[in-house]
Protein backbone atom coordinates (compact mmCIF):
# COMPACT_ATOMS: atom_id res chain seq x y z
CA UNK A 1 0.00 0.00 0.00
CA UNK A 2 2.83 2.31 0.92
CA UNK A 3 4.55 1.65 -2.42
CA UNK A 4 1.43 2.71 -4.31
CA UNK A 5 2.00 6.27 -3.11
CA UNK A 6 5.74 6.24 -3.28
CA UNK A 7 6.10 6.66 -7.04
CA UNK A 8 3.66 9.60 -7.41
CA UNK A 9 5.16 11.21 -4.31
CA UNK A 10 8.66 10.91 -5.73
CA UNK A 11 7.42 12.26 -9.05
CA UNK A 12 5.84 15.25 -7.33
CA UNK A 13 8.99 15.86 -5.33
CA UNK A 14 11.12 15.73 -8.47
CA UNK A 15 8.76 18.11 -10.25
CA UNK A 16 8.77 20.57 -7.37
CA UNK A 17 12.53 20.41 -7.05
CA UNK A 18 12.99 21.20 -10.73
CA UNK A 19 10.69 24.17 -11.17
CA UNK A 20 11.52 26.90 -13.63
CA UNK A 21 14.27 29.31 -12.78
CA UNK A 22 14.78 32.85 -14.03
CA UNK A 23 18.34 33.91 -14.83
CA UNK A 24 19.21 37.60 -14.98
CA UNK A 25 22.52 39.18 -16.03
CA UNK A 26 23.49 42.23 -13.96
CA UNK A 27 25.55 44.54 -16.15
CA UNK A 28 27.13 46.54 -13.33
CA UNK A 29 26.87 43.86 -10.67
CA UNK A 30 29.04 41.48 -12.74
CA UNK A 31 26.76 38.65 -11.69
CA UNK A 32 23.88 36.37 -12.59
CA UNK A 33 20.86 36.36 -10.30
CA UNK A 34 18.97 33.05 -10.16
CA UNK A 35 15.32 33.23 -9.06
CA UNK A 36 12.47 30.80 -8.60
CA UNK A 37 10.05 31.57 -11.45
CA UNK A 38 6.94 31.12 -9.30
CA UNK A 39 7.88 32.95 -6.13
CA UNK A 40 10.59 35.22 -7.56
CA UNK A 41 12.70 34.40 -4.51
CA UNK A 42 16.41 34.71 -5.18
CA UNK A 43 17.98 31.25 -5.07
CA UNK A 44 21.53 32.46 -5.52
CA UNK A 45 23.75 35.09 -7.09
CA UNK A 46 26.78 33.95 -9.08
CA UNK A 47 29.79 36.18 -9.79
CA UNK A 48 30.74 36.11 -13.49
CA UNK A 49 32.93 38.14 -15.88
CA UNK A 50 32.80 41.88 -16.25
CA UNK A 51 29.77 43.62 -17.72
CA UNK A 52 27.57 40.62 -18.43
CA UNK A 53 24.85 41.54 -20.92
CA UNK A 54 23.47 39.06 -23.46
CA UNK A 55 22.66 35.61 -22.05
CA UNK A 56 21.35 32.48 -23.75
CA UNK A 57 20.61 28.94 -22.59
CA UNK A 58 22.33 25.95 -24.18
CA UNK A 59 20.02 23.70 -26.21
CA UNK A 60 19.75 21.18 -23.37
CA UNK A 61 19.16 23.96 -20.84
CA UNK A 62 22.03 22.84 -18.64
CA UNK A 63 24.41 25.70 -19.34
CA UNK A 64 24.12 29.45 -19.59
CA UNK A 65 26.25 31.33 -22.11
CA UNK A 66 27.06 34.86 -20.96
CA UNK A 67 28.54 37.75 -22.96
CA UNK A 68 31.16 39.10 -20.54
CA UNK A 69 31.57 42.27 -22.59
CA UNK A 70 34.49 43.90 -20.78
CA UNK A 71 36.43 40.62 -20.54
CA UNK A 72 36.05 39.92 -24.28
CA UNK A 73 34.84 36.36 -23.70
CA UNK A 74 31.77 34.20 -23.28
CA UNK A 75 31.42 32.77 -19.82
CA UNK A 76 29.81 29.36 -19.50
CA UNK A 77 27.83 28.71 -16.33
CA UNK A 78 26.90 25.15 -15.40
CA UNK A 79 23.33 25.41 -14.14
CA UNK A 80 23.44 22.29 -11.99
CA UNK A 81 26.58 23.14 -10.02
CA UNK A 82 26.49 26.92 -10.66
CA UNK A 83 30.20 26.77 -11.35
CA UNK A 84 31.83 28.62 -14.22
CA UNK A 85 33.32 26.30 -16.82
CA UNK A 86 36.11 27.25 -19.22
CA UNK A 87 35.04 30.35 -21.17
CA UNK A 88 34.52 30.48 -24.92
CA UNK A 89 36.17 32.99 -27.25
CA UNK A 90 33.95 35.79 -28.45
CA UNK A 91 35.84 38.44 -30.38
CA UNK A 92 36.06 41.94 -28.89
CA UNK A 93 33.29 43.44 -26.76
CA UNK A 94 30.57 40.83 -27.17
CA UNK A 95 27.20 42.39 -26.37
CA UNK A 96 24.56 40.00 -27.61
CA UNK A 97 24.46 36.67 -29.37
CA UNK A 98 22.11 34.02 -30.71
CA UNK A 99 22.34 30.25 -30.62
CA UNK A 100 21.85 28.35 -33.88
CA UNK A 101 19.18 25.60 -33.69
CA UNK A 102 22.01 23.05 -34.06
CA UNK A 103 22.96 23.99 -30.49
CA UNK A 104 26.63 24.27 -31.43
CA UNK A 105 27.11 27.66 -33.06
CA UNK A 106 26.85 31.04 -31.42
CA UNK A 107 26.59 34.18 -33.53
CA UNK A 108 28.13 36.99 -31.51
CA UNK A 109 27.87 40.71 -32.21
CA UNK A 110 31.22 42.41 -31.61
CA UNK A 111 30.27 46.00 -31.00
CA UNK A 112 33.76 47.45 -31.44
CA UNK A 113 34.80 46.05 -34.80
CA UNK A 114 31.68 45.76 -36.99
CA UNK A 115 31.87 41.98 -37.07
CA UNK A 116 29.72 39.03 -36.16
CA UNK A 117 31.88 36.18 -34.82
CA UNK A 118 30.78 32.58 -35.29
CA UNK A 119 31.77 30.43 -32.33
CA UNK A 120 31.90 26.64 -32.57
CA UNK A 121 31.02 25.61 -29.02
CA UNK A 122 32.32 22.03 -29.22
CA UNK A 123 35.57 23.05 -30.91
CA UNK A 124 35.84 26.04 -28.56
CA UNK A 125 37.03 28.42 -31.25
CA UNK A 126 35.90 31.15 -33.59
CA UNK A 127 35.30 29.51 -36.96
CA UNK A 128 34.16 32.51 -38.98
CA UNK A 129 33.57 36.25 -39.07
CA UNK A 130 30.91 38.18 -40.94
CA UNK A 131 31.41 41.87 -41.79
CA UNK A 132 28.30 43.88 -40.98
CA UNK A 133 27.42 47.52 -40.23
CA UNK A 134 28.89 49.79 -37.57
CA UNK A 135 28.25 48.73 -33.97
CA UNK A 136 26.50 45.39 -34.46
CA UNK A 137 23.91 44.76 -31.78
CA UNK A 138 20.80 42.58 -32.13
CA UNK A 139 21.29 38.96 -33.27
CA UNK A 140 18.68 36.42 -34.29
CA UNK A 141 18.81 33.10 -36.12
CA UNK A 142 15.79 31.98 -38.15
CA UNK A 143 13.96 28.93 -36.75
CA UNK A 144 15.20 26.79 -39.69
CA UNK A 145 18.78 27.97 -39.06
CA UNK A 146 19.25 29.25 -42.62
CA UNK A 147 19.24 32.98 -41.95
CA UNK A 148 21.03 35.20 -39.49
CA UNK A 149 19.80 38.71 -38.79
CA UNK A 150 22.09 41.27 -37.23
CA UNK A 151 21.21 44.89 -36.50
CA UNK A 152 23.81 47.64 -36.53
CA UNK A 153 23.28 50.54 -34.17
CA UNK A 154 24.99 53.23 -36.23
CA UNK A 155 24.23 52.05 -39.75
CA UNK A 156 20.55 51.68 -38.76
CA UNK A 157 20.11 48.47 -40.69
CA UNK A 158 19.03 44.89 -40.25
CA UNK A 159 21.51 42.73 -42.16
CA UNK A 160 20.25 39.40 -43.50
CA UNK A 161 23.05 36.83 -43.70
CA UNK A 162 22.84 33.54 -45.62
CA UNK A 163 24.10 30.96 -43.15
CA UNK A 164 25.49 28.68 -45.91
CA UNK A 165 27.75 31.35 -47.42
CA UNK A 166 28.01 33.74 -44.47
CA UNK A 167 27.43 36.59 -46.91
CA UNK A 168 25.11 39.53 -46.29
CA UNK A 169 22.36 39.20 -48.87
CA UNK A 170 20.12 42.10 -47.85
CA UNK A 171 20.35 45.29 -45.81
CA UNK A 172 17.04 46.59 -44.56
CA UNK A 173 16.93 50.20 -43.38
CA UNK A 174 15.09 50.68 -40.09
CA UNK A 175 14.77 53.56 -37.62
CA UNK A 176 17.63 54.93 -35.52
CA UNK A 177 19.69 52.65 -33.31
CA UNK A 178 18.20 49.22 -33.89
CA UNK A 179 18.64 47.14 -30.77
CA UNK A 180 16.92 43.80 -30.99
CA UNK A 181 15.78 41.37 -33.70
CA UNK A 182 13.21 38.63 -33.14
CA UNK A 183 11.95 36.04 -35.63
CA UNK A 184 8.38 34.82 -35.43
CA UNK A 185 8.27 31.09 -34.59
CA UNK A 186 7.15 30.25 -38.15
CA UNK A 187 10.06 32.19 -39.66
CA UNK A 188 7.72 34.44 -41.64
CA UNK A 189 8.71 37.76 -40.04
CA UNK A 190 11.50 39.50 -38.17
CA UNK A 191 10.65 42.27 -35.74
CA UNK A 192 13.38 44.87 -35.18
CA UNK A 193 13.22 47.47 -32.42
CA UNK A 194 14.80 50.93 -32.75
CA UNK A 195 15.85 52.56 -29.50
CA UNK A 196 16.15 56.17 -30.65
CA UNK A 197 13.49 55.90 -33.33
CA UNK A 198 11.13 54.47 -30.73
CA UNK A 199 9.57 52.06 -33.25
CA UNK A 200 9.45 48.40 -34.24
CA UNK A 201 9.90 47.51 -37.91
CA UNK A 202 8.15 44.32 -38.98
CA UNK A 203 10.18 42.79 -41.82
CA UNK A 204 8.87 40.09 -44.14
CA UNK A 205 11.35 37.21 -43.91
CA UNK A 206 11.07 36.21 -47.56
CA UNK A 207 11.03 39.56 -49.38
CA UNK A 208 13.14 41.29 -46.72
CA UNK A 209 11.09 44.44 -46.83
CA UNK A 210 9.47 46.40 -44.02
CA UNK A 211 5.79 45.55 -44.13
CA UNK A 212 4.75 47.54 -41.08
CA UNK A 213 6.16 50.01 -38.61
CA UNK A 214 4.77 49.99 -35.07
CA UNK A 215 4.84 53.31 -33.20
CA UNK A 216 4.16 53.94 -29.55
CA UNK A 217 2.64 56.80 -27.58
CA UNK A 218 2.11 56.74 -23.84
CA UNK A 219 -0.06 59.58 -22.47
CA UNK A 220 1.99 61.94 -20.31
CA UNK A 221 5.33 60.38 -21.26
CA UNK A 222 7.80 62.39 -23.37
CA UNK A 223 8.43 60.90 -26.80
CA UNK A 224 12.18 60.71 -26.18
CA UNK A 225 11.55 58.39 -23.23
CA UNK A 226 9.85 55.82 -25.45
CA UNK A 227 12.81 53.72 -26.56
CA UNK A 228 12.01 50.33 -28.05
CA UNK A 229 14.44 47.60 -26.99
CA UNK A 230 13.57 43.96 -26.08
CA UNK A 231 10.93 42.04 -28.05
CA UNK A 232 9.22 38.70 -27.48
CA UNK A 233 6.50 37.08 -29.59
CA UNK A 234 4.21 34.24 -28.61
CA UNK A 235 4.72 31.04 -30.62
CA UNK A 236 1.18 31.24 -32.04
CA UNK A 237 2.07 34.74 -33.33
CA UNK A 238 -0.91 36.30 -31.63
CA UNK A 239 0.86 38.57 -29.15
CA UNK A 240 4.00 40.68 -29.16
CA UNK A 241 5.59 42.47 -26.22
CA UNK A 242 8.09 45.31 -26.56
CA UNK A 243 10.17 46.81 -23.73
CA UNK A 244 10.10 50.60 -24.01
CA UNK A 245 13.16 51.65 -21.99
CA UNK A 246 12.88 54.77 -19.82
CA UNK A 247 9.15 55.14 -20.44
CA UNK A 248 9.04 52.22 -17.97
CA UNK A 249 6.39 50.47 -20.04
CA UNK A 250 6.03 47.15 -21.81
CA UNK A 251 3.81 47.51 -24.86
CA UNK A 252 1.36 44.72 -25.65
CA UNK A 253 0.74 44.28 -29.38
CA UNK A 254 -1.79 42.30 -31.35
CA UNK A 255 0.76 40.59 -33.60
CA UNK A 256 -1.79 39.98 -36.35
CA UNK A 257 -2.95 43.60 -36.72
CA UNK A 258 0.20 45.25 -35.23
CA UNK A 259 -2.06 47.36 -33.03
CA UNK A 260 -0.75 48.34 -29.59
CA UNK A 261 -3.47 47.22 -27.20
CA UNK A 262 -2.00 48.07 -23.80
CA UNK A 263 0.96 49.59 -21.97
CA UNK A 264 2.07 47.93 -18.74
CA UNK A 265 3.95 50.02 -16.15
CA UNK A 266 6.95 48.05 -14.89
CA UNK A 267 10.24 49.20 -13.30
CA UNK A 268 12.59 51.92 -14.54
CA UNK A 269 14.32 51.56 -17.93
CA UNK A 270 12.86 48.22 -18.93
CA UNK A 271 15.33 46.51 -21.24
CA UNK A 272 14.88 42.82 -22.07
CA UNK A 273 12.07 40.29 -21.90
CA UNK A 274 11.66 36.51 -21.64
CA UNK A 275 8.74 34.10 -21.44
CA UNK A 276 8.62 31.00 -19.30
CA UNK A 277 8.18 27.74 -21.25
CA UNK A 278 4.37 27.76 -21.56
CA UNK A 279 4.29 31.54 -22.14
CA UNK A 280 2.03 32.11 -19.13
CA UNK A 281 4.57 34.44 -17.53
CA UNK A 282 6.73 37.18 -18.96
CA UNK A 283 9.78 38.57 -17.17
CA UNK A 284 11.23 42.04 -17.72
CA UNK A 285 14.58 43.45 -16.54
CA UNK A 286 14.48 47.02 -15.26
CA UNK A 287 17.98 48.48 -15.59
CA UNK A 288 17.64 51.62 -13.47
CA UNK A 289 15.40 50.47 -10.64
CA UNK A 290 17.54 47.30 -10.40
CA UNK A 291 14.58 44.94 -10.37
CA UNK A 292 12.70 42.30 -12.32
CA UNK A 293 8.98 42.45 -13.13
CA UNK A 294 6.74 39.45 -13.70
CA UNK A 295 3.74 39.87 -16.02
CA UNK A 296 0.78 37.51 -16.15
CA UNK A 297 0.37 36.96 -19.91
CA UNK A 298 -3.29 35.88 -19.74
CA UNK A 299 -4.42 38.79 -17.58
CA UNK A 300 -1.85 41.22 -19.03
CA UNK A 301 -1.04 42.49 -15.56
CA UNK A 302 2.21 43.13 -13.73
CA UNK A 303 1.92 40.80 -10.76
CA UNK A 304 5.23 41.33 -8.99
CA UNK A 305 8.46 43.30 -9.11
CA UNK A 306 11.47 42.18 -7.07
CA UNK A 307 15.00 43.52 -6.60
CA UNK A 308 17.84 41.70 -8.40
CA UNK A 309 21.45 42.87 -8.97
CA UNK A 310 22.99 46.11 -10.15
CA UNK A 311 21.68 47.15 -13.59
CA UNK A 312 19.85 44.02 -14.74
CA UNK A 313 20.16 43.54 -18.52
CA UNK A 314 19.41 40.10 -19.98
CA UNK A 315 16.88 37.51 -18.86
CA UNK A 316 16.15 33.87 -19.74
CA UNK A 317 14.01 31.19 -18.13
CA UNK A 318 15.33 27.68 -17.60
CA UNK A 319 12.54 25.08 -17.84
Amino acid at each position, binding site marked *: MRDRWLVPALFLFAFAAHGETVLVSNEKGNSITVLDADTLKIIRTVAVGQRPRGIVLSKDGRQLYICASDDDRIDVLDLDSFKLLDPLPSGPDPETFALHPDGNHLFVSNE*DNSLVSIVDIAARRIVGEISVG*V*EPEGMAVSPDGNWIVNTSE*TTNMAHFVDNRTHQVVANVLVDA*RPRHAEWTADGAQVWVSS*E*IGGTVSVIDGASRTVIHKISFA*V*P*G*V*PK*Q*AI*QAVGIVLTKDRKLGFVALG*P*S*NRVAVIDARTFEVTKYL*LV*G*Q*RVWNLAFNHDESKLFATNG*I*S*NDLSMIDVKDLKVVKTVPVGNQPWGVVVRP
Partner: protein
Amino acid sequence: MKGLFLMLLPMPLLAAEEWPCMQPLVPSVSLEMVWNGPPLAPAGDWREDRDLADLVTAISTPETDAEEGNAKLMRFLQSRKQNRARTVSRLMTGLIDENNATRARIVERLKMLGERQKGLADVATRLNDERDRAGSAADQELIDRANFAQRTYLSAQSTLRYACDIPGRLDQRLGMYAKTLENAR
Protein backbone atom coordinates in the same frame (compact mmCIF):
# COMPACT_ATOMS: atom_id res chain seq x y z
CA MET B 1 47.94 55.56 -35.98
CA LYS B 2 45.35 58.10 -37.02
CA GLY B 3 42.90 55.32 -37.76
CA LEU B 4 43.51 53.78 -34.37
CA PHE B 5 42.96 57.07 -32.60
CA LEU B 6 39.80 57.80 -34.51
CA MET B 7 38.48 54.43 -33.43
CA LEU B 8 38.81 55.60 -29.85
CA LEU B 9 36.45 58.47 -30.45
CA PRO B 10 32.87 57.72 -29.43
CA MET B 11 30.39 57.83 -32.26
CA PRO B 12 28.29 60.71 -30.87
CA LEU B 13 31.36 62.98 -31.16
CA LEU B 14 32.21 61.78 -34.62
CA ALA B 15 28.63 62.36 -35.65
CA ALA B 16 29.00 65.92 -34.25
CA GLU B 17 25.81 65.57 -32.30
CA GLU B 18 25.07 67.92 -29.48
CA TRP B 19 24.42 65.16 -26.98
CA PRO B 20 27.66 63.38 -26.02
CA CYS B 21 26.33 60.34 -24.14
CA MET B 22 25.59 56.86 -25.47
CA GLN B 23 22.34 56.85 -23.49
CA PRO B 24 19.71 58.63 -25.59
CA LEU B 25 18.74 62.00 -24.15
CA VAL B 26 15.54 62.03 -22.13
CA PRO B 27 15.05 65.75 -21.37
CA SER B 28 12.61 65.37 -18.48
CA VAL B 29 10.81 62.83 -16.34
CA SER B 30 7.05 63.01 -16.01
CA LEU B 31 4.83 61.81 -13.19
CA GLU B 32 3.44 59.12 -15.52
CA MET B 33 6.90 57.58 -15.87
CA VAL B 34 7.36 56.87 -12.17
CA TRP B 35 4.01 56.99 -10.38
CA ASN B 36 2.20 53.68 -9.96
CA GLY B 37 -0.29 54.75 -7.31
CA PRO B 38 -3.82 56.17 -7.58
CA PRO B 39 -4.18 59.56 -9.29
CA LEU B 40 -2.81 62.45 -7.24
CA ALA B 41 -5.36 65.06 -6.22
CA PRO B 42 -4.54 68.69 -7.04
CA ALA B 43 -2.88 70.07 -3.90
CA GLY B 44 -1.79 73.59 -4.79
CA ASP B 45 1.73 74.92 -4.93
CA TRP B 46 4.12 72.66 -3.04
CA ARG B 47 6.41 75.63 -2.35
CA GLU B 48 3.76 77.21 -0.11
CA ASP B 49 4.52 74.62 2.55
CA ARG B 50 7.89 75.85 3.76
CA ASP B 51 9.01 72.71 5.64
CA LEU B 52 7.90 70.46 2.82
CA ALA B 53 9.66 72.63 0.24
CA ASP B 54 12.87 72.62 2.30
CA LEU B 55 12.80 68.82 2.43
CA VAL B 56 12.13 68.48 -1.31
CA THR B 57 15.01 70.81 -2.14
CA ALA B 58 17.37 69.13 0.31
CA ILE B 59 16.80 65.59 -0.95
CA SER B 60 16.88 66.55 -4.62
CA THR B 61 20.44 67.85 -4.85
CA PRO B 62 22.71 65.76 -7.10
CA GLU B 63 24.93 65.02 -4.10
CA THR B 64 22.20 63.53 -1.90
CA ASP B 65 22.55 59.79 -1.44
CA ALA B 66 19.33 58.00 -2.41
CA GLU B 67 19.09 55.97 0.80
CA GLU B 68 19.72 59.01 2.99
CA GLY B 69 17.21 61.07 1.03
CA ASN B 70 14.65 58.31 1.33
CA ALA B 71 15.19 58.04 5.09
CA LYS B 72 14.58 61.80 5.41
CA LEU B 73 11.44 61.47 3.30
CA MET B 74 10.13 58.68 5.53
CA ARG B 75 10.85 60.69 8.69
CA PHE B 76 8.98 63.64 7.22
CA LEU B 77 5.99 61.44 6.41
CA GLN B 78 6.01 60.11 9.96
CA SER B 79 5.82 63.67 11.27
CA ARG B 80 2.91 64.57 8.96
CA LYS B 81 0.07 62.17 9.55
CA GLN B 82 -2.67 64.74 8.93
CA ASN B 83 -3.80 65.50 5.38
CA ARG B 84 -1.75 62.59 4.10
CA ALA B 85 -3.14 62.66 0.53
CA ARG B 86 -2.32 66.34 0.13
CA THR B 87 1.14 65.92 1.61
CA VAL B 88 1.94 63.02 -0.71
CA SER B 89 0.62 64.91 -3.70
CA ARG B 90 2.69 68.00 -2.91
CA LEU B 91 5.81 65.96 -2.21
CA MET B 92 5.55 64.02 -5.45
CA THR B 93 4.91 67.14 -7.51
CA GLY B 94 7.81 68.93 -5.83
CA LEU B 95 10.20 66.00 -6.28
CA ILE B 96 9.37 65.78 -10.00
CA ASP B 97 9.88 69.55 -10.42
CA GLU B 98 13.19 69.56 -8.56
CA ASN B 99 14.43 66.40 -10.30
CA ASN B 100 13.71 67.98 -13.66
CA ALA B 101 15.41 71.25 -12.68
CA THR B 102 18.52 69.37 -11.52
CA ARG B 103 18.43 67.18 -14.63
CA ALA B 104 18.20 70.22 -16.90
CA ARG B 105 21.31 71.74 -15.31
CA ILE B 106 23.21 68.47 -15.66
CA VAL B 107 22.10 68.00 -19.26
CA GLU B 108 23.42 71.48 -20.07
CA ARG B 109 26.74 70.70 -18.39
CA LEU B 110 26.99 67.42 -20.26
CA LYS B 111 26.42 69.23 -23.54
CA MET B 112 29.19 71.69 -22.62
CA LEU B 113 31.50 68.79 -21.74
CA GLY B 114 30.65 67.22 -25.08
CA GLU B 115 31.52 70.43 -26.91
CA ARG B 116 34.83 70.61 -25.07
CA GLN B 117 35.52 66.99 -25.94
CA LYS B 118 34.93 67.72 -29.59
CA GLY B 119 37.53 70.51 -29.37
CA LEU B 120 39.99 68.18 -27.60
CA ALA B 121 39.38 65.50 -30.22
CA ASP B 122 40.12 67.99 -33.02
CA VAL B 123 43.39 69.07 -31.37
CA ALA B 124 44.46 65.51 -30.64
CA THR B 125 43.65 64.36 -34.18
CA ARG B 126 45.51 67.32 -35.74
CA LEU B 127 48.62 66.72 -33.62
CA ASN B 128 48.48 63.01 -34.38
CA ASP B 129 48.30 63.77 -38.11
CA GLU B 130 51.26 66.14 -37.85
CA ARG B 131 53.28 63.52 -36.02
CA ASP B 132 52.37 60.84 -38.57
CA ARG B 133 53.30 63.12 -41.47
CA ALA B 134 56.65 63.98 -39.88
CA GLY B 135 57.39 60.27 -39.34
CA SER B 136 60.89 59.66 -37.99
CA ALA B 137 61.65 63.37 -38.40
CA ALA B 138 59.06 64.30 -35.73
CA ASP B 139 60.73 66.28 -32.95
CA GLN B 140 60.29 65.35 -29.31
CA GLU B 141 58.13 68.39 -28.58
CA LEU B 142 55.58 67.38 -31.23
CA ILE B 143 55.54 63.79 -29.96
CA ASP B 144 55.03 64.99 -26.38
CA ARG B 145 52.25 67.38 -27.39
CA ALA B 146 50.45 64.68 -29.40
CA ASN B 147 50.72 62.19 -26.54
CA PHE B 148 49.55 64.77 -24.01
CA ALA B 149 46.55 65.74 -26.14
CA GLN B 150 45.59 62.10 -26.52
CA ARG B 151 45.91 61.40 -22.79
CA THR B 152 43.87 64.50 -21.95
CA TYR B 153 41.16 63.45 -24.37
CA LEU B 154 40.96 59.90 -23.01
CA SER B 155 40.93 61.08 -19.41
CA ALA B 156 38.12 63.56 -20.14
CA GLN B 157 36.30 60.78 -21.97
CA SER B 158 36.22 58.58 -18.90
CA THR B 159 34.92 61.53 -16.84
CA LEU B 160 32.25 62.10 -19.43
CA ARG B 161 31.23 58.44 -19.39
CA TYR B 162 30.78 58.66 -15.62
CA ALA B 163 28.89 61.96 -15.88
CA CYS B 164 26.53 60.48 -18.48
CA ASP B 165 25.24 58.10 -15.81
CA ILE B 166 24.12 60.96 -13.54
CA PRO B 167 20.66 61.57 -15.10
CA GLY B 168 19.95 57.84 -14.71
CA ARG B 169 21.02 57.92 -11.08
CA LEU B 170 18.74 60.91 -10.42
CA ASP B 171 15.87 59.02 -12.04
CA GLN B 172 16.66 55.95 -9.96
CA ARG B 173 16.47 58.04 -6.77
CA LEU B 174 13.21 59.65 -7.91
CA GLY B 175 11.78 56.17 -8.52
CA MET B 176 12.73 55.19 -4.97
CA TYR B 177 11.05 58.29 -3.55
CA ALA B 178 7.93 57.60 -5.65
CA LYS B 179 7.68 54.06 -4.23
CA THR B 180 7.95 55.43 -0.68
CA LEU B 181 5.14 57.89 -1.37
CA GLU B 182 2.97 55.23 -3.01
CA ASN B 183 3.31 53.11 0.13
CA ALA B 184 2.57 56.07 2.39
CA ARG B 185 -0.89 56.76 1.02
